[in-house]
Each structure stands twice: as C-alpha cells, then as structure tokens.
C-alpha cells in the first residue's frame, strides 16, 4: 500500500500515512491488519479528526458519482466523495439549493455528515444531518448497513457527527430546498457590542433565514465586541441581477512567517469594520461570495506560514452566552492574537439526530489563530476554562488540541457512542480526546 503525506486544513500536522483509494462503492474494505482505518474526504477538517497516524486513510475522492436527482422533490442521491460544490453546480440552475451549507463548498457529502456541519441558517433548519434521509455505511465486517430514521436508527444517529469512526459512508440521500434564483437579499448592520449583536439576532431570527456576524476580535475597551451583522434570505423570483462570474485566486505560496500578526490584525479589522459608513446597507449578493467568501481565495490556509494555524470554535449555552462571549473576546483582544475572520453566530434549538453533534441552542464563536507554540496553547487553556465553566463545548471538526476532559464533558453521549465505533476504525483525534486528560 502506498504512503502519502496527509495534512488537514490547519496545516499544523503532516503525517505520512498509508493511503487506499476507494474507487467504487461496491468494493469492500481492505482486509489487511496493517493498521486502523479512517475515511479521508477532502481534508477540510482543521485539526486531527481526519487524520490517523499509523493507520490507513480511505480516500473517498473517487467516490464522486451522482446516483439520482429528482428535480420535482429535491431529493438527491450521490456517493460520499461528491463535493458540495459539485452539487451546487448541478442543482442551482434547476432551482434547488443545499438545505444546510458550511462556510466552504469544498467538503464532501460524507464529511458533511460525519461532522454534522451547520451553517448560517442553523436557527431555522438545524444541521446538515437533519436533512439526510439515509446513507449506506460500509462496516469492516463486510456489512453494507442502510441507515435512516426507520432503519438502523442507532447507527444513523451515531454516524451523523460520528467523525468517520462508525464505518465508511459510501452513499447518501439528502433533501435539498427550493430557491428562485442564485441571489441573496442581504442586509449588513454595524453593531457596537455583544449586547447589540444579541438583540439583532433576536430581532432577525424569525424573518431571516441566514444570520451571521463578523466580530472585530482586536478591539478592546469601549469598542469590545463590535462587528458587522449580516442577515439575508434567498431572493424571490424576479429579484435578481445579471450573470455572475465565479472568481477565484490562489494564495501562491507559504510565506516564511505568518502574515497574520498583531499589527496586520489591528489594521485589517479597523479598516474592515469601517468599510461601511452607514449603520445599515442592503444589497443583492450572489450565493457564492455570501456563503463562501473564503473559497474565492484558494489555499488561503497558506497565509499562516509554515507553522499552520488552529481554529477555536466553541458554542456556549444560551443562558451564559452573553457573559462568556464577552469574556472570551476580552481575553482574545488582550492576547493580541486572533485573525481577520472571527465569526459570531446564534445557534437555534433544533436538535440534530447526531449523538456527537456540535451545535446547541446558544452562541457560537469561531476564530483562527496562527500557531505560535506555547503562547497560543496557553491562551487556549484560558479560553477553555471560560467555555467549560459556561457549560459550552468545542467543535471536533475544527479542533487539533482540546484537552480530553473538555471533550468528554462537552459531549456526554460519547460513552453511548463508543459501541457504534467500527472495531477497525480510529483517528488521531479520537485517541487524543479519549486517552488524554
């Protein structure tokens, strides 16, 4: 079996792993006993949840076939390696859209299920897993389990958000949602504080399908917690602009040091916050820049230099949301670390079927941090204690460092989940959070 150097989106870890290309959904898993297995889709998880040091990566990139699409019902069946980008290319011209999409369209369907991803409409639609009708799970004992709400429901709930540990998802059936055109009717509102942000969410959650905000993580004192709040809906029929041309550029190289530092951060954030003079603006924006602003700059993760970066994404339960988020922002601003992209979002109360699903009713904060070694890790520990005492949890898909006890207290169902793990599957993430303190 050939080996390949695999990494994840954060580029902190780079692991020589044996690689098996899974080219047909009718194949069975390799029977060799040369290490544990873990599916590897498009490598967009940030930390080590898609890596398996010493094991075999089951690459699903070649499982990229559609199986059926019914433009009358919006039900799509496809193999698990199909990218969301491919789905959009197929269905948007036919008046359909993903029910839930994360912030990048370069993830596979299998990855979207295994991480139970969520998007800007979480408060209305729940997670990706809420819109999965069924999928096929290939287990190492050779079984092809069909999992749905009526069949093998226990494996259905374990696999949604199950981090690829329950077996290989070979194909899935998902429900899409109707749209009239590819445009989003978007409003951007400047806010001054976390209080104002929460008030805007409350005011908007009912009438706007998509809400999200960019928060200035470099500002302190009076301007702590300021940012830009975005709310939008799919534009109705007739409200549209001309042809949209997809643009993308590639970040061309890995700079010797991170281009994100205290100086550039302060400058960018101040400029970005002031990019609009008015309190509120309204525009018609194509769905690509609206949902996937970062997909326009391919390989942007190189900007953090050779050390890579971590993302810290937590969710704090509603009742402690305001205090904990303010505390986190204060801590981050004081550290001078952080990144251009800091996202604040209120998650809704729709429960996902997934046992280890990340979102919960509350406030979620996500930020990237260049990997600066101990200094970064010490700050993470301080953030961890705020999250932990507020009863919050971190997102495994984004994580490459959380202490085991934070995972275990954040995901109380991990004990029940264990019995559904395929005995031949494992991941670096899983071993880390189950074995470390």
């Amino acid at each position: 079996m050939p080996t390949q150097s695999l990494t994840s989106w954060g580029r902190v870890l780079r692991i020589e792993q044996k690689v098996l290309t899974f080219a047909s959904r009718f194949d069975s898993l390799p029977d060799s006993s040369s290490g544990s297995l873990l599916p590897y889709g498009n490598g967009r998880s940030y930390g080590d949840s898609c890596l398996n040091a010493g094991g075999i990566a089951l690459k699903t990139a070649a499982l990229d076939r559609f199986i059926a699409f019914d433009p009358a019902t919006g039900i799509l069946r496809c193999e698990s390696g199909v990218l969301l980008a491919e789905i959009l290319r197929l269905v948007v011209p036919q008046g359909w859209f993903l029910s839930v999409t994360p912030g990048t369209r370069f993830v596979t369907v299998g990855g979207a299920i295994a991480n139970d991803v969520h998007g800007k409409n979480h408060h209305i639609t729940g997670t990706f897993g809420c819109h999965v009708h069924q999928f096929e799970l290939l287990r190492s004992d050779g079984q092809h389990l069909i999992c749905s709400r009526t069949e093998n429901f226990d494996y259905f709930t374990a696999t949604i958000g199950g981090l690829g540990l329950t077996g290989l998802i070979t194909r899935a059936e998902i429900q899409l949602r109707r749209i009239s055109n590819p445009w989003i009717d978007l409003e951007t509102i400047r806010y001054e504080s976390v209080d104002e942000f929460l008030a805007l969410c409350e005011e908007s959650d009912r009438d706007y399908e998509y809400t999200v905000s960019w928060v200035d993580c470099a500002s302190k004192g009076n301007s702590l917690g300021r940012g830009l709040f975005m709310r939008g809906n799919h534009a109705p029929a007739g409200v549209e602009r001309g042809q949209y041309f997809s643009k993308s550029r590639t970040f061309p190289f890995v700079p010797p040091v991170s281009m994100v530092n205290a100086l550039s951060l302060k400058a960018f954030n101040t400029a970005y916050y002031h990019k609009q003079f008015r309190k509120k603006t309204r525009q018609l924006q194509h769905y690509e820049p609206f949902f996937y602003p970062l997909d326009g700059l391919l390989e942007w993760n190189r900007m953090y230099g050779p050390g890579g970066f971590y993302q810290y994404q937590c969710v704090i339960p509603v009742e402690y949301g305001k205090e904990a988020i303010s505390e986190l922002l204060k801590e981050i601003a004081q550290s001078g670390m952080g990144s251009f992209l800091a996202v604040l979002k209120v998650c809704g109360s729709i429960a996902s079927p997934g046992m280890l699903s990340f979102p919960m009713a509350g406030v979620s904060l996500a930020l990237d941090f260049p990997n600066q070694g101990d200094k970064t890790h010490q700050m993470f520990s301080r953030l961890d204690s705020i999250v932990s005492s507020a009863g919050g949890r971190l997102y495994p898909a984004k994580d490459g460092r959380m202490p085991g006890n934070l995972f275990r207290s954040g995901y109380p169902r991990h004990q029940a989940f264990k019995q559904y793990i395929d005995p031949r599957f494992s991941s670096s993430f899983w071993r880390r959070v189950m074995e470390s303190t």
Partner: protein
Amino acid sequence: MKKILIIGATSAIAEATARIWAQRGDQLFLVARNKEKLEAIADDLRVRGCPKVETYCMDANDVEGHVAMLDAAEHLLSGLDTVLIAHGTLSDQQACQQSVELTMREITTNALSVIALLTLIANRFELQKTGTIAVISSVAGDRGRQSNYLYGSAKAMVTTFTSGLRQRLFKSGVSVVTIKPGFVDTPMTAEFKKGLLWASPETIGRIIDKAMLRKCAVVYAPWFWMWIMMIIKMIPECIFKKLSL
C-alpha cells in the same frame, strides 16, 4: 450533439471525459466488463445531463463479440460519429518476465484488442466518410524502458497502428487522435507514489476533449510530456542501456 462510443468506460480517464460530454448533451454508449460499475457511471452521467446513456458489458479481449457490440451501439444511438478507446491494464513487468501466458494476455489486452476494434470501426467510419476516433496510448510507448517495456511495447503498437490509420482515413474525412498520457492519478496507478509530474483524470479528460474537437493527430497529456519524451528518445542506446529508468 455527438453519438459517442466509449470502450473501457469504467476507466478513470474515460469517466472524466464522459462527464464533459454528458454535460454538453452528447449521447453515450458505454462498454466495460463490470456491470455494477458501468451502471453506477451511467446513472451519474444521466444526472449530469446526458440525454441518452446506454451500457453494454463486454470484455475487449472477446474479439468475436466486437461486431455485435458495434451493431448494438449503432442501433441504439442510431449511428455513431465518435469513438474513444480507453481500456487497458497496467502490466506488472516483473510478473510478465516470468510468465509467457501473462505476457501474451497483456499484449492482447493493451494492443491486439485495440487493433481489432480499430479495424472494424475504421471500415465503418470510412464508409460514412465522417467521424473522430481517439485512442489512449501512452508515453510509455515512445521508448522501451526496463521498468515497463511490456506495457510500453503494446502501447507502441497502438501508436504506430493509429499513425498509419490516420493517414489512411484522412482522405475519408475521418480523424484519428492518439492520446499519450504521462502519469495519471487513477486506481490503475494507486500503488505509485505521486509527485509533481502527476495529473488528474479530469485534466486528461479536458485534454482529450479539446484534442478531439481540434482533430489533433498526437497529443501528449499534459503537454510537458512531449519535451520529456523528446529528451528520453534522444539518448543514444549505448548510454540508455546503462540507465535505470
């Protein structure tokens, strides 16, 4: 709208090329050995917009079956104007050296079956005085190297055959396109360590489509292989024999 026959339709390169044609609205007749895999690809192409996809199970080495297959293709698509021959196996050089039987089988799969198919297709296209035939050969056919000269010599036969055929059919308005891919990251080459010179099947698919539209004669895929092979071909035998390529 073209009417296209693809032999070896489950190969990664053929599948990538078929997707381009499906999206363009061409009609496809897919031939391969494995029914399950063939149907999975046909379903995918239908979803991607292909107005008509037919499948046909056949082992290319079953030369007796070629006529029936071609008749079925012409019947079901009401004619044919384009053919892509993409089937093949990557021979295990070491194993072939130890087995005459395996050697013969690899030559049959990679060369003789292609020539048998081309003979029939050429006559039909010559009569209808139109059409495009693309055949996937390989850079390996440009010069025999100890690491894979069996595969290479089979592909050399294909390259030479298509060269002659191109001349013959030119008068009838039929174009013959010889595709010479370099390293392509497909299940066939899963065991190899990948590097800078490797291309994806999608890249090769786009090159094939473009070459067929422009009716090119010989196309290296990607282009830089033309220069690499030119250098390799220029090395004098007295030096070449000492190299470990």
